[in-house]
């Protein structure tokens, strides 16, 4: 049992949340109150949230992959449904509840804008995939090669050039989203550093050839930039996250008893909303991605507190890794895109034609990996986008239901 810390956790807003693991404040439901069925329901809700989170954490290899992120959203939607059942099932008509619910609704609306921005982010990843697909199809063996697998023709200069152009465009595209650069918000300069000078000169060369009539030399990536953000210039994921999680305080014992325990359910749901939003921002490219926002002082007595902190830790760790620090998004598949692309560029760097057999094999192998990444993206992106949209819908519906609930006069006024 953690030692009871007499200093109130609620006053330690300034401290890093990591140190608050050791704090302990009295559990939300006081012992001398008889456990009513609504208490049991609310406790079950907390526990189920904790279980779902633990499940997600156990899958550590797959952390932040498309599939894992979908499961994260699944878990969120399950919790949301349970929250609704608890809220509308427990008869409570008490004043503090209304205020808490309105606060929750404000945060929920912020999450809606985030869902829209994330949908754009996923679309961006889709655009990246298209470039990969071009490169892959350029290097893909034609069907007739199946018969002559052992002696497949060497890759030609045209194919290599085409693939490199696609990958260079991809590099620029991923660089070009200034505000999407990395967790720390820095411009992504280190991407493709090995061949940066080369790719740069290639880029210039290519742009001279490929720019459609009218684009000036200085607007090198202008035709690609036009594919980016549809939010306004001042929109910021960091700010959105801060609005969702900021000022979320642990409910006071007085409020908890006055609302029949629902205050802690509302708190839990708001916290989950924040956690999921935060993880999504970490994973998916969006404008002004920043992961500084955090939950303050979650009492250990909530069963989901531990798993949530572990999740924060794991994702933060991932974001600090050397090769992910400046990534546009922590999705595992994005890392794969970066890696494969770089690998292929390196493999085809300063290639001399006709290709040596070893070189050819190396490139083909890299191309195969590229194909796999394309496949997994293709399979995973659409479902995730649908899930994000589903999250949007369910949050809207919950909000409407809560607004209706608030506008009806309460019974037993």
């Amino acid at each position, binding site marked *: 049992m953690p030692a009871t810390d007499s200093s109130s956790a609620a006053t330690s807003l300034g401290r890093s949340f990591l140190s608050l693991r050791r704090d302990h404040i009295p559990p939300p439901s006081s012992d001398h109150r008889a456990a009513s069925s609504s208490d049991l329901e609310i406790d079950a809700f907390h526990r189920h949230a904790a279980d779902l989170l633990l499940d997600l954490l156990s899958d550590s290899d797959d952390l932040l992959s498309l599939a894992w992120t979908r499961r994260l959203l699944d878990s969120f939607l399950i919790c949301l449904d349970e929250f609704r059942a608890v809220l509308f099932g427990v008869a409570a008509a008490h004043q503090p509840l209304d205020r808490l619910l309105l606060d929750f609704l404000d945060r929920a*609306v912020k999450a809606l804008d985030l869902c829209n921005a994330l949908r754009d982010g996923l679309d961006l990843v889709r655009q990246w995939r298209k470039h990969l697909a071009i490169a892959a199809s350029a290097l893909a063996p034609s069907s007739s090669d199946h018969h002559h697998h052992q002696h497949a023709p060497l890759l030609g200069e045209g194919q290599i050039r085409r693939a490199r152009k696609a990958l260079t465009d991809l590099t620029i595209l991923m660089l070009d989203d200034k505000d999407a650069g990395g967790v720390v918000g820095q411009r992504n300069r280190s991407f493709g550093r090995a061949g940066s000078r080369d790719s740069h000169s290639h880029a210039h060369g290519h742009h001279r050839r*490929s720019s459609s009539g009218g684009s000036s030399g200085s607007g090198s990536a202008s035709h690609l930039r036009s594919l980016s953000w549809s939010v306004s210039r001042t929109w910021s994921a960091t700010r959105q996250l801060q609005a969702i999680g900021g000022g979320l305080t642990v409910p006071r014992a007085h409020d908890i008893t006055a609302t029949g325990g629902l205050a802690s359910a509302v708190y839990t749901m708001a916290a989950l909303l924040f956690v999921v939003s935060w993880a999504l921002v970490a994973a998916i490219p969006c404008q002004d991605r920043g992961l500084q926002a955090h939950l303050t002082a979650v009492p250990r007595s909530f069963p989901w507190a531990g798993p949530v902190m572990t999740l924060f830790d794991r994702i933060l760790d991932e974001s600090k890794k050397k090769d992910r620090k400046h990534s546009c998004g922590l999705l595992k598949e994005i890392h794969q895109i970066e890696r494969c692309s770089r690998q292929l560029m390196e493999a085809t760097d300063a290639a001399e034609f006709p290709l040596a057999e070893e070189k050819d094999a190396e490139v083909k192998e890299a191309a195969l990996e590229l194909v796999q990444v394309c496949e997994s993206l293709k399979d995973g992106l659409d479902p995730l986008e649908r899930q994000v949209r589903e999250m949007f819908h369910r949050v809207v519906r919950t909000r409407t239901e809560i607004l*209706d609930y608030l506008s009806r006069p309460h019974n037993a006024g």
Partner: protein
Amino acid sequence: MAAAGYGRECAQVYASVRKPAVDASLRRLGVERLSIGDVQRLEWKALEAKIRRWIRAARAAGRGGFASERRLCFLIFHDLPISNITVTAAATAAAPATHDTPFAEAVKGAALQLFGFAEAISIGRRSPEKLFKIVDLHDALSDLLPDVSDIFAASKVAESIYVQAAEIRSRLGAAPRGLLSDFAWPLLGGPTKAAVPGGTVHPLTRYVMNYSSLISDYKVTLSELIVSRPSASARLTAEGNELAPSLAELELPEPENQSPLAAHIIWIIAVLEHNLESKASLYKDTALSHLFLMNNVYYIVHKVKDSPDLWNLIGDDYLKRLTGKFTMSATNYQRSAWLKILNCLRDEGLHVSGGFSSGISKSALRERFRSFNAAFEEAHRVQSGWCVPDTQLREELRISISEKLVPAYRSFLGRFRHHIENGKHPELYIKYAAEDLEIAVNDFFEGVPPSPHIRRRSHG
């Protein structure tokens, strides 16, 4: 490019060139890049203007802009060897060649932005003043959807745009249901505040009736959207509401083919009536409380008669009931305000039988005149400050009072004045000629305090 096998790149370049063009044309139409948060923060008045602009822009984009984009794409790509085969060498589940993809890519952002605004409105908090613009938006979107379907649903990529537009339309359609159901709640009353001075038409009555009138203007769409009657729970809750125990017992007309919308409006008006009754009870003067009801119910009846659609909706039966209520209030007013005064002009009690002077009791007569004068003066003083806003009703009421009062006074005067005139200080008792009364009645219900004395055409 396509012929050289560079189909994908070609599609990409096309999309990247067309996208800014499409975005720019949307901007020119006045569609702004507003987040849901932005829309929430705006005042409703500002939003109304934006909705109007949006409706115009959406029509132009839906029928014009997007359609011509698609045509352009078709012109360029339709006979080019582009395909979207999957990357695997074994092209098993090859997606069919979609020549729409470049179009979808070029247009997607703009389309999402366009519908995003409508979505933000559909999500906003509901309040009664929003009802009509929301219906406008719903109707505009409904008109657009067939075009949107043609343009967008053909491509898998763009299909989600159509789906989203359809969802938004549903949500917009659901809003009126909630709004109408919730409309009556505040009318169930709460602690009633001070009564409106002068017994005039209450602002709430005006608001509710104007709203109902607007609802009837929009009845075409609203009849489609409102498919359920006011819930039984609404009436049950009214039952539990201490302020409105009688509401649940209210028998509202429910003719055979009454539409749910009509049921809602009748319910709203019934709740208003009930509310008015509780407000009427706040007046200490019963006559004023009847006048208040008379004024307000008259206003309701008038509003209904003024709007054929509204009349149609609530039906003749209910209108009859309302009219009856009005008549009853008017009668009650006259009785409580004038009975006492008119009783001063009765014959009974004045005659004394037997004894030497079989005839009129002079003292009783003098008392009568004195009471009449005092009562009338009091009525004049007080009721001039009362209000009957409707000109015609005011005239009719005055005429009705005059018709009862003046002949009775004239006849009383005629029969008994000589008794007074033969006594001391007749001027103390016979203060007014019948004509004076007639003129004085014209001061009634002006809503302004009268001049201190009743004008007299002649003295004595």
